[in-house]
């Protein structure tokens, strides 16, 4: 099960799904992924992304997350820079059957929480054992 979620793109520079019209660097956001009997839960760090600038799609078992980061500074000369600013993009292939209609997402303070409920047929069932 640990391999069910495979990271498709690690390096932002190699994202080849479509050419972007806007120049700039795209970063791969960090994610934590948990699985329970009921669902997959993804927690992602998307600092600087407003809820209206976040685009999440789920199609053919492929989950894509694209967060646009609006420029925060105009022509600033950084005295010191430890990180770059750019859009976030990442996609995952989901091995589990997901009930796409019930996917829900919340973006709060730049932290994304994404719930992917499993389809009924793949949820584990507890087998009642009868005693005679």
């Amino acid at each position, binding site marked *: 099960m640990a391999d069910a979620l495979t990271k498709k793109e690690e390096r932002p520079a190699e994202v080849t799904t479509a050419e972007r019209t806007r120049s700039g660097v795209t970063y791969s956001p960090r994610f934590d992924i948990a699985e329970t009997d009921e669902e997959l839960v993804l927690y992602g760090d998307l600092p600087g992304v407003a809820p209206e600038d976040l685009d999440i799609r789920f199609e053919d078992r492929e989950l894509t997350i694209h967060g646009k980061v609006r420029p925060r500074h105009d022509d600033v000369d950084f005295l*010191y*820079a430890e990180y770059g600013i750019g859009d976030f993009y990442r996609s995952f292939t989901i091995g589990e059957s997901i009930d796409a209609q019930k996917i829900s997402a919340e973006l*709060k303070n730049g932290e994304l929480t994404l719930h992917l409920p499993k389809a009924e047929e793949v949820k584990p069932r507890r087998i009642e054992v009868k005693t005679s």
Partner: protein
Amino acid sequence: MLTTRWQPFGSMMAEMNRLREEMDRLFSRFGWDGGRLLARATYPPLNLWEDEDNLYVEAELPGFELSELEITVTGENQLSLKGERRQPELQGGTWHRQERGYGSFSRLVELPHPVDADKVTAELKHGVLTITLPKREEAKPRKIEVKTG
């Protein structure tokens, strides 16, 4: 007064390696605490810039509320940023991926100019922290009047 360690650079990303070395050098100064060597502080990464009146320090801190961060300025030019990030609780499941870091962090940076500690403000928006540090008067650039004869 220390010699300046913050050098203005043109292209920021191209200079990352050099910046990292600068930073390591900077933090080695704070690496001792009563003889115990502390782990090098690198979280959160910071960007720093200025205009005539203020210094600005920015950090990406997704998932935080401003009240969870401890921001202090001491000795006119030492900025300290502390906080703790906790992992979401998971009941009856397993983690497949854990790429985000957790735990408490503390960063101490030496600012390139003395600042007015009483007037420092901080804003946290969509997980991006911006600290505005007004420069002290003596650090502001002065326009020199040139008299024509």
